[in-house]
């Protein structure tokens, strides 16, 4: 299972250095449950990588490992000492703080060495809110905003960490299609301007094709990399364009194969890598 992946990786050797590198990373929960099986993956500096997979493929587990929220059972994760920010499916804003104070807290923790003043942080928070088109909402409480606005505050908070790597765990999954389209444009703009390296987890194939430089397909139970699609369509792309739809249906087909494999009788389990 790992051999074709190795090939794929070497085939796109273009001299860019990786911002995140996972080397044969496995994660076992409890005694038996193998969530990730020897995943090898890298995200280059400034690259936008989408991780795609059906449920149970350990996408979120993988992000948690990269974020340092959890430790791998085996294998190595190298983030080159870069700062890592993360967005979740929920905004996860602190309800006791105003929108601005949420961002200021991130600034405060991040810039503790540089010791900024409260005034500087407030101004910086206002700038960041402006970037996500929320200028003037700093004094509001998170619950006073809509879901899409809260998610943008979460994005501003992640940007406040001045991170090199942005991990996103289905950040737009709970939003309506129109808001999501707009946020795709926003994210793409910010990603380019700030030269971020993004690892974006989603189960939405079109979203992955719309955003990614590469779409990495994970198998389910256990999660392993099964295919790595480079997306060379010119940007900006539109989720409803023909090219995106065509590529998305190819990838969906591959994903369906993977799902069907699980519907077959148990003798297939030898091929899934579960060691009994």
């Amino acid at each position, binding site marked *: 299972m790992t051999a074709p992946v190795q090939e794929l990786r070497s085939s796109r050797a273009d001299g860019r250095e990786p911002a995140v590198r996972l080397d044969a990373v496995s994660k076992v929960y409890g005694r038996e449950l193998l969530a990730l099986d020897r995943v090898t993956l890298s995200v280059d500096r400034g690259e936008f990588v989408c991780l795609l997979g059906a449920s149970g493929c350990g996408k979120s587990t993988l992000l948690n490992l990269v974020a340092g929220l959890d430790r791998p059972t085996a294998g190595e994760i190298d983030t080159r000492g870069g700062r890592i920010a993360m967005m979740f499916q929920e905004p996860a804003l602190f309800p006791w703080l105003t929108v601005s104070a949420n961002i200021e807290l991130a600034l405060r923790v991040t810039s503790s060495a540089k010791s900024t003043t409260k005034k500087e942080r407030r101004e910086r928070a206002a700038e960041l809110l402006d970037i996500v088109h929320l200028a003037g909402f700093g004094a509001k409480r998170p*619950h006073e905003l809509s879901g899409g606005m809260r998610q943008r505050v979460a994005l501003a908070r992640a940007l406040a960490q001045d991170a090199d790597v942005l991990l996103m765990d289905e950040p737009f999954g709970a939003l309506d299609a129109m808001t999501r389209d707009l946020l795709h*444009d926003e994210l793409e703009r910010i990603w380019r301007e700030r030269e971020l390296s993004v690892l974006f987890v989603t189960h939405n194939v079109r979203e992955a094709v719309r955003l990614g430089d590469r779409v990495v397909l994970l198998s389910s139970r256990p999660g392993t990399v099964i295919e790595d699609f480079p997306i060379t369509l010119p940007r900006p792309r539109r989720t409803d364009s023909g090219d995106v739809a065509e590529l998305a249906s190819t990838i969906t087909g591959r994903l369906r194969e993977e799902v069907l494999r699980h519907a077959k009788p148990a003798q297939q389990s030898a091929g899934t890598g579960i060691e009994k």
Partner: protein
Amino acid sequence: MTVDISQQIAGLDALELSNRERRGLAARIWSRTWPMVSAILMVLVIWELVVLSGWRPEYVFPGPITVLGDLGNRLGNPEFYAAVAVTMRRAITGFAVAVLVGLVVGAAVSRVRPLRAAFGSLITGLQTMPSIAWFPLAILLFKLSESAILFVVVLGAAPSIANGLIAGVDYTPPILLRAGHILGLRRLALYRHVILPASLPSFLSGLKQGWAFAWRSLMAGELLVIIANQTSIGEQLDNARELSDAPGLLATMIVILVIGIVVDMCFGAADNALRRRWGLDQRVG
């Protein structure tokens, strides 16, 4: 292009923002007071009916008019205010010490696992212990003194306060802990910026419950531990019974009830304010 996007976003935002308006102050006060006023009126009517039925002679169980008259006389008497002042001083001192003890114990128990295993259920056990059962020991330890009363007040209130904090820490939403971790908050910083603020609502309800226990313990204490030459609400109640002063007795009981309700309303207001700030008050419809 970008102008277009920002306008679209602004349009969506404007559509999605809830335009919930709070009603005026007068309307809110009225909507809260009228049920209370009618409940009080109802109680007074039932009380008067019981008296009129002749179940007990009037010198044993006087009607509301006599009692409220007596209460009115008391309100003009400086001795009454001295008694209330002594009782409230004890209540505030005892409650403050209980908050301190509850905070320290709660923080330690919620943070240190062996302490949790050792004392977690003991604290809950202490909470169910009737505080009046502590008085014999308190009197043995501190004689008939204010220390004996405060000892029991603190023991009555502290477990609830500690439990409130522990529950708050336990139920800190995991997603907020993860968000804090991602921001780089660790240990004490995580405690200060995430766990403590997140446990505030639970801590507040612990405080409210703690106050109820403190107030009960204090009244029991003031009836049992009567200190010579020092008036207090409990002492006045005991005095009224000894003199068979039924109107005075009932008037003092009303005072105890009203103080309890007023303080409880203060906690309720704090709780409401918190819920509104956090957006926890959004009911359906």
